[in-house]
């Protein structure tokens, strides 16, 4: 274990940076932007150091820092990363500089915008590293505030409504979760995720909940289920799981595209992370009891969102629904892992496949979806904000490099082998098929519909005769190429040699599967 508080430094870097930039921004916008980017790159460097020092062979948490905070409430400062947290941390560290560079040319209060992005990054880092509910929840909520202002101040015409709905809806889920956790604390006396997971898996937590929380006429089991549902709601809204997803298309569409890069790339992972880190380990029995409805909700998320994407006429709404669809695969895999299988060793392998697939898919989706929104941002910068499906046509003629690179991201998104998306989806489906065959077979419809709407998009925007309105549309500039090039290179790298990323969290997966077997 490292003595050096790397994770604290990681979380503080963008926080300090954000405050500095917010103070500096009124003086000199250019300086503020430069400062912000420096801090983001610094954070990336710290994340890189953590990744380099991380021992991928060891299960469990590394870089642990632990100290009392509010002992009476059993609140500790307790942070650390395992393979899952590390990957999410890396994703966040990669996407923020990319989003900053993509919004480099914005003119409206850029310093403020960049400062808020740093604060958002800090919230994300905190969420992905905290191991005590109290601490974790602060960052979970903290990330909402900059996101709210990013949408509210720089968004599209309906930004006010979108920001409010985004904030209130997510907050609503969070409050349900907070109440549930207060109940858990009341019953168990701890906020420690690691302890709670242990108690959850032995059934001690459920007994404690049932014993402590009395309500006339309500059985202990029902109370535990209610607590479970409270936590579930918090994450289901965030991921989102149908039918708690309606805030998302509007928020993604109204937010400035570079903010959407972070919303879809990193923030949507908070919900999935919550499922994997908190909900499933702490409530395995309760998840199993409700597994069938949860699986069907995951399948509904996959199919309905893919079909709804096909009906959209706004590029950002299409990609927003596509985002829901891709996270649906993660949910399917995560629920499949929870299926009770006894001690069958073959099925343990399938669970390892599905869990690895889920984590990889989270990373892949973050990368691909953020890149797609980055291209939408470039397109909006060229078209003066137009981004309708039918506003363009034949752009490949004038912008071949744009088309080619965005084409790569589109094909990565539809799961073409050789690019990153396929590996995650394959592992999820491979594992889930043996565990929950029918749900998985149905979910493949999503793969088909995704191809339909993404190719329709390509056809309408890039193919066909050139819309003369865009005859002078410039191709990607050298700077813009460099912004998307790292992401594109990663798509190929993961697609061809997935071990590169899977190797980082396979040990974590093994541990999770081992703990959840029975």
């Amino acid at each position, binding site marked *: 274990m490292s003595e050096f508080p790397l994770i604290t430094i990681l979380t503080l870097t963008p926080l300090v940076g954000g405050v500095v930039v917010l103070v500096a921004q009124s003086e000199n916008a250019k300086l503020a932007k430069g400062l912000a980017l420096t801090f983001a790159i610094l954070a990336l460097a710290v994340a890189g150091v953590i990744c380099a020092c991380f021992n991928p062979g060891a299960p469990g948490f590394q870089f642990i820092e632990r100290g009392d905070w509010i002992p009476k409430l059993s609140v500790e400062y307790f942070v650390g990363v395992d393979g899952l947290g590390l990957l999410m941390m890396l994703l966040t560290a990669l996407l923020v500089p990319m989003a900053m560079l993509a919004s480099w040319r914005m003119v409206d209060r850029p310093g403020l915008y960049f400062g808020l992005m740093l604060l958002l990054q800090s919230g994300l880092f905190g969420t992905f590293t905290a191991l005590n509910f109290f601490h974790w929840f602060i960052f979970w909520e903290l990330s909402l505030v900059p996101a709210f202002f990013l949408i509210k101040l720089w968004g599209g015409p309906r930004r006010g409504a979108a920001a409010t709905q985004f904030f209130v*809806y997510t907050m609503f889920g969070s409050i349900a979760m907070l109440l549930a956790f207060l109940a858990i604390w009341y019953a168990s006396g701890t906020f420690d995720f690691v302890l709670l997971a242990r108690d959850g898996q032995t059934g001690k937590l459920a007994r404690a909940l049932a014993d402590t929380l009395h309500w006339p006429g309500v059985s202990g089991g029902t109370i535990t289920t209610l607590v479970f549902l409270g936590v579930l709601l918090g994450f289901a809204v965030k991921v989102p799981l149908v*039918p708690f997803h309606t805030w998302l298309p509007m928020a993604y569409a109204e937010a400035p595209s570079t903010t959407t890069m972070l919303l879809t790339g990193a923030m949507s992972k908070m919900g999935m992370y919550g499922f994997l880190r908190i909900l499933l380990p702490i409530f395995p029995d309760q998840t199993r009891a409700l597994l069938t409805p949860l699986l069907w909700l995951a399948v509904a998320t996959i199919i309905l969102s893919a079909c709804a994407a096909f009906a959209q006429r706004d590029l950002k709404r299409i990609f927003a629904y596509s985002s829901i669809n891709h996270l649906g695969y993660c949910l399917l895999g995560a629920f499949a892992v929870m299926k009770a299988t006894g001690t069958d060793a073959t099925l343990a392998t399938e669970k390892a496949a599905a869990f*690895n697939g889920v984590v990889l898919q989270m990373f892949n989706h973050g990368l691909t979806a953020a890149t797609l929104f980055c291209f939408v941002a470039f397109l909006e910068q060229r078209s003066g904000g137009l981004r309708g499906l039918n506003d363009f046509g034949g752009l490949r003629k004038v912008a071949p490099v744009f088309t080619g690179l965005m084409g790569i991201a589109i094909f990565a998104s539809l799961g073409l082998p050789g690019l990153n998306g396929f590996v995650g989806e394959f592992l999820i489906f*491979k594992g889930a098929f043996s565990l929950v065959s029918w749900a998985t077979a149905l979910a493949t419809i999503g793969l088909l519909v995704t191809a339909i709407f993404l190719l329709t998009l390509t056809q309408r925007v890039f*193919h066909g005769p050139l819309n003369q309105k865009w005859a002078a549309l410039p191709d990607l500039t050298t700077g813009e190429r460099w912004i998307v090039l790292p992401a594109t290179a990663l798509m190929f790298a993961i697609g061809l040699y997935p071990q590169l990323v899977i190797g980082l969290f*396979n040990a974590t*997966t093994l541990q999770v599967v081992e703990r959840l077997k029975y």
Partner: protein
Amino acid sequence: MPWIVHNLWLIPGLPLLAAAITALCKQRSRTLSASLAIGAMVLAFGLACVAFLQTLNKPAGSETFREVFNFTWLQFGTASVQLGWVLDPLTAVMAMMVTFVGLLIFIFSVGYMAHDENFTRFFCFLSLFAGAMLGVVIANSLLLLFISWELVGLTSYLLIGFWYHKPSAAAAAKKAFITTRVGDIGLFIGMLWLYGASGTLLFYDGGNGCLETGALAKMVAMTTSVGMAASTAIGLLIFCGAVGKSGQVPLHVWLPDAMEGPTPVSALIHAATMVAAGVFLVARVYPLMSAGGAADVVPATLQVVTWVGAITAVFAACIAVAQNDIKRILAYSTVSQLGYMMMGLGVGGVVVGMFHLITHAFFKALLFLGSGSVIHGCHEEQDIRRMGGLRKYMPVTFATYAVGMLALCGVPLFFSGFWSKDEILHAAHGWPASHGPFYLGAAGALLTAFYMTRQVCYVFLGSYRGSVRGSAAVTSHGAHPAGSHPSLHAGGQVPHESPPVMTWPLVILAFFAVVLGFVGTPAWPWFQSYLGGEKLEFDFAKLTEGGVLFLMLLSALIVFAGIGLGWWLYGRQPAASAEGPDALERIRPDIFGLLRGKFYVDELYEATVIYFNAWWAGVCDFFDRWVWGGAVRAVSYLALGLSWLDRALDEYVVNLGFDQVCLGLRRDGGWMSLVQNGQVQRYLSIIGLALTVLVLLLIWGIKPS
């Protein structure tokens, strides 16, 4: 392990490398891109030959040569996903065919695409295709095969949509990708199931592969919830992929539209190689397909394969009869011939299907390239009614095309198509399950001979009918392939023969369209013994025994009947003008209309599947906006209403009451303050007043009552 087995990956690797280099090069480096592509293909062909020679060394004691090289691709948990490649006769023969035909088509493309502004892109995509296709060929893992399979689909998409500014090309590319993906979903599920059931996706792995006896026996023994053996269900799901890729009914609709791509693409991808990948897939997993069968019991999987193939063979041949686009006729012919191959696999096994696959690859590539030469020579004209008499203008093209046509029709003895088709008919005749496929196959043979004769008569016989259209039409037509060579043909109206870079590949292909048949005759079945691992002997007597001769005579009769019928209708009196009705149309306009409309399958799909998809997407969107979104809004309105009520309560009940009380207090206070205003004289006067009143009261009070 022989060197070539270890380095088999170079065969797809070299074209892939060429594609990668070309992709990073500037658009202007034409010579470089073409030489890279062709050079990589030459090397790949050389390696394929080395591999082929290697497979001739049968190890003692085993039927065929088969060596594999497997490696770990990724690890999950304690298990791993393995990929690998296999060298066996099936790989070798397919790799030779793909590299050789591919090489000739690459060379042809140098001439055909010479004036296209995206010349380098074209060669980049072609190389990428070749690499992916060879990946399918060498794969020893269903996963690697699937990966390459999807990449092949991608390149098909890119090349069909190569002239992307044409809306029809863009639509055709999308249609091809999506229609094949429908089948691929089946293949994907089949692959998952196979992985779950057998624990591996490697075909051969020293006894542990999924096509080896241990895994097969396990899957035959498993029964599914619908009562079918798991091996059958998996086989059928994998076959879905083959149906999509090989354009079998009902997923054949994309293949004719794919002719929107440049003609070399049609020849390479949509005739010789990629569309045959479905057939190859079935051949590769044949042990799985035939699992659970016995001597007289045909397993359900093979029955489905046979019937789908036989129906496709006739269905597509019917449509080909009434088409006017030179490439579409060939496209339907391809669909029909692919049906034959499937049927061959079903009734006769791998060798029968693969033999037809190989011969067909040569003569169909020849026909497509020939049609490319015709289109090129006629200034991008594709309608056979506006051709005619090209025999005189394009002698080399005509001669080679005729060879291809005779091979496709299956004219006896001297053409390869005869021998390979006869094998299929012979096997179908002896098929224990039913005689239906045999009759369907025979009907298909008749139709094939008929529509090919019709096409050749229209294109090469009679007199040229193209000049009547005037130059305006020609230039408008010639503008489509990215302004493909306006300067060259601006004035010229007379068809011309193509340059040698295009005719030489035709001649070579024509040569093979003839000789390839002789490697698999019943008298000397070298191909069958090589692929099937049987003992080879030269025996003329085989030609006459077991009904072989009878079937040969029958099929010869059928072919000549078809050609004769075609000649009688179209050859005797070649059409004089482009606008006149077709000879068959004059006889039966109703049937001809149905065939020309392709049995209206596209329209049927338009009205059902596509309509449903759009409708359902609308429903999902509606649900999102109004039902779920509505519920959220209702909750928010409820919250707003509650807040309003709260505010009203506050303002009008609580606040107002409070205000009233305050107001009252203030009012009273005002009154009170009047009393206590600090002025002594007021106090004194009040005291005086009070005193007076008190005195008065007292006076009244003490008054006796």
